[in-house]
């Protein structure tokens, strides 16, 4: 089966993932994308979500905290703001973060416009926490 190189790097953890894979499924600002080997050149921004990596007949998940992706026919490079493999995820911390973000979003919805809550940030935090829990198979709802 044809393979394509996938490199995931983040500013503070260095190279997180670097293997030959069969397919990558990501969520970009424009929607879901599936990248197969020999894909055309592409540059896009990624949202915080759980990336799906198909390799060696199985499926792996990586939690992504947003970033950019460049695709060339031989290689995919993901410049992640943060990225975690399942074994590196702290479930309790992610749960707490999810709760915090949900509370903040609920607060934002109750109050009228002039609030100090940064709704974009809260939404991103929620997406990040959900991605981590999803990767860890610990997402309740």
């Amino acid at each position, binding site marked *: 089966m044809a393979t394509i190189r996938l*490199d995931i*790097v*983040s*500013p*503070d*953890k*260095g*190279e997180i993932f670097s293997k030959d894979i069969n397919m990558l499924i990501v969520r*970009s*600002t*424009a929607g879901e*994308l599936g990248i197969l080997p020999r894909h*055309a*050149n*592409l*540059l*896009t*921004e990624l949202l915080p979500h759980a990336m799906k990596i198909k390799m060696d007949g199985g499926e792996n998940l990586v939690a992504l905290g947003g970033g*950019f992706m*460049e695709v*060339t026919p031989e290689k995919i*490079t993901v*410049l992640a703001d943060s990225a975690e493999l399942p074994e590196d995820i702290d479930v309790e911390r992610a749960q707490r973060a999810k709760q915090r973000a949900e509370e903040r979003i609920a607060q934002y919805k109750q109050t009228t416009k002039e609030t100090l809550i940064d709704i974009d940030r809260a939404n991103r935090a929620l997406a990040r926490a959900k991605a981590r829990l999803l990767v860890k198979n610990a997402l309740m709802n």
Partner: protein
Amino acid sequence: MANLQNIRRRIKSVKNIQKITNAMDMIARSRFNAARDALLNNLPYVDKTRDIIRRLMTQMHGQEDKSPFIMTRKQMIEEEQHGNGKFLFLVIASDKGLAGAYSSNVFKEAHDTIEYDGSPDDSKDATEENFHKKNFDAIKDVREAPKTGQMRAARGHVSATGASRPKTGGSAPSTANLSVAKEYHDADYVDGIELITVGRKATSHFQQRGYNIIKHYHGISERPSYQYAKEIADLIVERFMSGEITDVTMIYTRFVSAISCVPDDVTLLPITTDDYVAENIATKEEYIYEPDAVSVLNDFLPRRLATRIYGAMLHAAASELSSRMNAMSNATDNAQELVGKLNLYYNKVRQAGITNEINEIVGGANALE
């Protein structure tokens, strides 16, 4: 003997200083290890980003109008000569001293860059991304008839110092108000410069010389965080987009190894596509942008700026701590040597005193016979 007591006191104080320098050496050593790890973890990200930028810029050549951050050299020269924008310099140095020549090396490089006048570059740091001086040289060639009033935009005007300084009689401000920089360099030129400083040393150095520091960051030089790099990048992007600044250059210390740190200057904005095209003509391929080129580039390039600044801050932190480590271990060694010398001297003086006493006793005994 009073002399003996003095020497004893000196030995004691040198030993105390040695204890302090030794402790500082060990502190710097442990912090350096952390800083080096942070830097090594950041390197792959920076390298990958640079690769992508290379490919992108090769491809974007000829479509510079798609993003305000990229220009051809020609456009850039045009902008710098005739635009009203200022030059911005980001200087990254240390908060504290006692790091040998670390800070002064950065300042030297900064002055070389800020006041660059076209003289040959004597520093051996010309990396392929050091476009700042190239830009100047390019401007110089087309700078046949500079327009008065916009002369400051033509970099290197400063080179002619006193001779070309506009001396319109009577309108000269009182010398008391002239800052050091304006006295030695062209007032117009200095007015066209803005600085962002990281580290107390950098702030005080450039403040004393009368440069206009628009923002300074203190207390983050040893342990930089991405958040500050982002803040600086946001500020730069905002000012660049509003047209207040046309050129952004960063001066920092590149960490090569624990015994070698090189001051370096790098042009951050605008990104000139010409420089990348020359590098690899072969890879001219079309890109798909999701959702479209303008919005992806306008998100990606500021991000690239922030990661570059963050990378430079990590380089600077590792350089600062390794410089401090070297300075402090040298100081400890020197103190050790000094204690040895003083001990020898102390013993000599003591022995001289004893000999003297014996001589007196013998002399006295001889006199009694």
